[in-house]
């Protein structure tokens, strides 16, 4: 069994080459889950507990596969009503959100597999999804980006009350949106085939900046430490880009591109950053995966995935927890009331109830206290009703509640409403 802190790099391809996993530290290939052929943004680690991959359509089916970390074969297969292009999970792994080719967004509950809600989001394919807290950002083939408030979307009443189903709709991108990443501070960064990346402020719902690139950007990854993001270009370069503007410089717009990591021979399709920001993993159409040291900007490892293009890379620290059996995702929403929705609590040992330990000495002290107050005789003759020192305190608490009440209600109700007095 691998040590729990093992970090793995996962990569999937659009050709059926499976999901390969390499140990980030040793570089050895750990496991290869088969079969899997995913388009970009369709591979996701669900709260580090298991892996989910939406398959590229083959024939007339485009299933979603679940894989357990240690088993190469598919654990659960689900067959949504339409091919899913973009798939993400929430940080706790409670929900899977998929973007379909018809522009619909599907929202599944992982524990039960129920399709909680499905809504039409875009005119064309949903290409990428991102979550900022409970705001869902979706980017589409038609160039639009929409921001959804999930609380509203999941509640029928709230949906009907809202003026627009979405919170914001951004149409500044001229061509398909390829990737979106969110950053704390309600910042989202999007890339598009129109050779720009745009930075959005999600709390105000406006574009903050637009940065032009020399090539189409297919993927974006944020550096967790700073205002830098990496943009994987179709020219094989990874552009290191400053999110912020240096107010002192007066140069033109491209000044925010700080440099480029250049080693891939074909376009960079996906990027993943380690949580400490020291490593960047890139997957390319040339079929290889490279690991970069972000400080030296050098390639530290190369993994060969397959002949076909790599479409997804992930860095995951698998959590090998005892999972309840996974449920396949449903095709359609259950009619209201048909299924009793039940929240599933995965028990957390930290919430263990602690029992009071070694209370004898405490009890003795309490007894002695009351002995000192009341004298020996009272305690042992009258059955020691004074022992429970607490009731006093509780009594006052109750008393105060009643006082409040008396004031607020009784006077009001009794004294001032003649109708009740007459009865």
């Amino acid at each position: 069994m691998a040590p729990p802190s093992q970090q793995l790099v996962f990569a999937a391809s659009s050709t059926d080459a499976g999901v390969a996993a390499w140990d980030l530290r040793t570089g050895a290939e750990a496991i290869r889950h088969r079969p899997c052929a995913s388009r970009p943004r369709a591979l996701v680690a669900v709260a580090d507990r298991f892996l989910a991959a939406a398959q590229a359509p083959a024939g007339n089916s485009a299933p979603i596969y679940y894989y357990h970390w240690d088993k190469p074969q598919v654990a659960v297969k689900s067959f949504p009503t339409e091919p899913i292009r973009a798939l993400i999970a929430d940080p706790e792994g409670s929900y899977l959100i998929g973007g379909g080719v018809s522009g619909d967004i599907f929202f599944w509950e992982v524990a039960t597999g129920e399709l909680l809600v499905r809504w039409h989001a875009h005119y064309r394919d949903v290409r990428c999804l991102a979550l900022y807290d409970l705001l869902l950002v979706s980017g589409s083939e038609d160039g639009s980006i929409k921001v959804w408030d999930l609380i509203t979307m999941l509640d029928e009443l709230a949906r009907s009350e809202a003026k627009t189903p979405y919170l914001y709709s951004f149409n500044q991108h001229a061509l398909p949106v390829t990737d979106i990443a969110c950053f704390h501070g309600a910042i989202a960064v999007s890339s598009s085939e129109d050779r720009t990346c745009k930075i959005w402020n999600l709390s105000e719902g406006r574009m903050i900046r637009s940065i032009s690139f020399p090539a189409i950007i297919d993927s974006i990854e944020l550096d967790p430490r700073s205002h830098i993001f990496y943009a994987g270009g179709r020219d094989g370069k990874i552009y290191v880009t400053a999110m912020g503007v240096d107010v002192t410089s007066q140069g033109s717009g491209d000044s925010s591109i700080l440099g480029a990591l250049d080693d891939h021979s074909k376009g960079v399709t996906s990027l993943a950053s380690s949580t400490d920001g020291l490593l960047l993993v890139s997957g390319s159409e040339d079929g290889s995966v490279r690991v970069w040291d972000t400080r030296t900007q050098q390639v530290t490892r190369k993994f060969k995935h397959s002949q076909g293009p790599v479409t997804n890379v992930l860095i995951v620290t698998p959590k090998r927890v005892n999972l309840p059996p996974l449920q396949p995702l449903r095709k359609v929403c259950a009619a209201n009331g048909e299924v009793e929705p039940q929240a599933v609590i995965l028990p957390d040992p930290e919430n263990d109830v602690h029992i009071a330990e070694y209370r004898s000495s405490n009890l003795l002290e309490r007894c002695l206290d009351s002995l000192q107050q009341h004298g020996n005789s009272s305690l042992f003759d009258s059955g020691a009703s004074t022992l429970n020192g607490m009731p006093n305190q509780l009594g006052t608490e109750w008393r105060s509640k009643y006082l409040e009440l008396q004031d607020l209600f009784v006077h009001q109700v009794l004294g001032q409403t003649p109708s009740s007095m007459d009865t």
Partner: protein
Amino acid sequence: MAGAGGFLADMNDGWFKPRLLRAVVSERLPKAGSTVPPAELFSILEAVRTHGLLTESHLDALDHKLAEAWRAAVDSWVDRVVELMASDSPYSCWLGTCFLGVTFQECSNMRFLQSYSDWFEKILRNLQEQSSLELVTAVSCTSMSDLFVRLANFLNLKKEASSFAGRVVELLLLLLNENGPVVDEAVDLLTTVIKLYPSSVNRHYNRVESAIAAKIMSTEVNVKSSKKFARALALLPSVRVSEGTWSLMIQKILIVVNNLLNDAFLGLEEETKGREIMMLLVPPGNDPPPVFGDGTRSGGNLHVTKKFRVYTVPTISALVHCCCVMLTSYYPVQKVNVPIRALVALLRRVLLVDGSLHKKLFPSTTSLQQELICFELPSLHSSFLDLLTATIKATRSQLLPHAANIVRLVMDYFKIAKLPTMRTKVYRIVQLLLTSMGVGMSLHLLDVMVSNAVGDLDDSCVNDMTLFSTNPSKVTNESASKSYSKKRKQESQIQNSHASGLEKAAISPKKRKNSSMPNTLKGMMTLETASNVRMLTPLSVKIAALEALEILLNVGGSLRTDRWRAKVDLLLINIARSACDVGVGYGQRTSTVQDKNISDFRLVSLKALLASFLSSPHARPPYLAQGIELFRKGKLEIGTGLAEFCSRALLALDVLAHPRALSLERAGPVLDCRAPENAVFGAGACKVLPSRGQCQVMEDEDDWLVSTKDVEPTAVRMFHNEKQSTLVKEDPQIDSFGEAVQDVPAYNKSDASMVDLATEETYKLNKVDNPSILHDVSTPIYSKLPETRKPGVAPVSEENRTHQVDHLQNRSFTVTEPSGKLGSSGGAPSGQGVASSIHKAPESSPSCFTQPSKPILPDAESEDSMPDIVDTDPDSD
């Protein structure tokens, strides 16, 4: 080494402990039948625990003589304790059992292994003897519990321990039928056993469940004990390791609760509610679970009025508490299914009952019954608010599908919640929701949260706390609860009197409290009552409101800022300032419902202030300088949590004070945000207002605060200017552009919200002086908080006065920035007339920047003298 006799080497000498223990046993520990004063027993207990007299652990393992001596000493201790236990005297028996429990805690592993079964039998005998004194039985339970706790450390003894536990459980089932302290300790022992040796309880599962159920539903158990029972009940599902047990238990409990509510809420809600929830709990087609407990219903023989108070409500509270524990505790199963929809429906059902009668009046509903329910509603609500908290905690992100429902519930409940305890709890729930669901949740809760928090906090934002706390005679005589409700009444009275005068207030029965009300209303005009009103929201509520605001700012501080930030930022700085100004005397005011004091309040207000700074959408938060000053002062209060927090706050603000970060936005076209000439006069004219002797304090305070908004950006500009004086001209404008853009909505907002508050005078002034929009923007600020317009409130602190100049200088900025923006929307700075030419002057001659502030504030300079003179008026009044 000293050996058995003679002098010790020092206090750590190994021989010291056996000698001390021997002395304790022979001289101080009472013999069977005799008694000693409690103080003596305290000191024995202290000696045993402090020096570890029973541990038999010595550094020098080879010193057999020492080991032997110590063992002998402990032997004699144990012998004496056992002898005490065996005594006929209840006192000795009680004491012996107590000390045996202490021995379990303290003695060495070796000794415990040797004697545990012996000790177990001895305690068990105590428990079995029905004749023995209650107190002895109680203390035996405690000692037994300690025995099991110690025993659990020895994994190899698990089997034997389980069989011990099994024997105890049977005894416990008998003990549970008793009352008084015994039951308390017995249920603790039961909890221990369930937790440590669940398998031993498995056989008795149903009997234990019904015993506890009977106890919870009995009318003789006090609140604290029934909570203990609820905890034990909540632990029970862990005895049977399967998902079903947990679900079944919570299902049964919720059914009982629902049924009890059916009786309670008759006539106060729609009839069908109970049935709807029942449908959720037991979906049609499924078999209902077995009845909770034995199905015995106590309280049947009670009179209906008493039954409600002593049976229905306490039972519901205990059962709900049990649900809370179940939801938030760990069970050794893979997952548990929470009937979330039923829970939410039940919460809605209870929390939305406000005591008003349902439209369709039942013949059976009497005013007496309504009274009774109103009497009990707060405790019911309190329990269910706890349940809501537990539900949010337990389900975490899985609450999402029900989040909108809960948001609606919270929003509705804010209207019902008037009592301080309730409000405090709602604020806590809001905090939880905001933390767990982040920015999406703050979108939904923003409005209700801000309006409620402002309502609760606003009365204290004036600097008069110090003033009146020295004369608190009126306030202290009233309980906080009373005053609280009165304050609410008066608030509404104020509004009414503003709207349509006294009559309306008088005819509305809801608003009328008692016959003294009109007097109070008149009293409003006098000072004391005004102060009364202001101090009446209990601190606990204010603290909760501030904490909730803090989290709101943290999570969604940049959301829809134009609608609320200006108001909240101002409120927070005012509160922090007044909290920090208040003397200690105020904190000594105690009240029944508040366990928080002014120092908590101060800390929380500063925390909220920090959040307001850090989440500010402006490049510079408006009141940063004042805030830093407060943090600096707070840092001096060495040894308090306040000082600790303040030093952290200063560190966090360091980045704001000396910006290092890069701006996300590149500067747009250059905008001229300086004032056109006429605005200067307008601003000056506004200053005449205070001379009417009406709103000095508030206004001084306000102006001063508002003005600082612009002191800061100026500094920024300076900073840049100095740094880059050789660079392109637009440069210094970068910051101010952002400022201006963000300021506009803020001011418009304040404009809109203030107009209704503005008194006629303000209005007239505006009209007379200058009809331009600018004045509308600026003047309403004065009219905030109309109740502060009393001459007596006038005492302005020196501090405020000295700041007058500042605020006047900057007043012109505040006012004119929007206009500058409007005027220059073309983007080109050249064609802007007088103002822009003034403005451009410094830029065209970068050398000016060597003298910092003057070139930056050309307009302010020019107008400075005039309003300054005018402004001295109010103080001389």
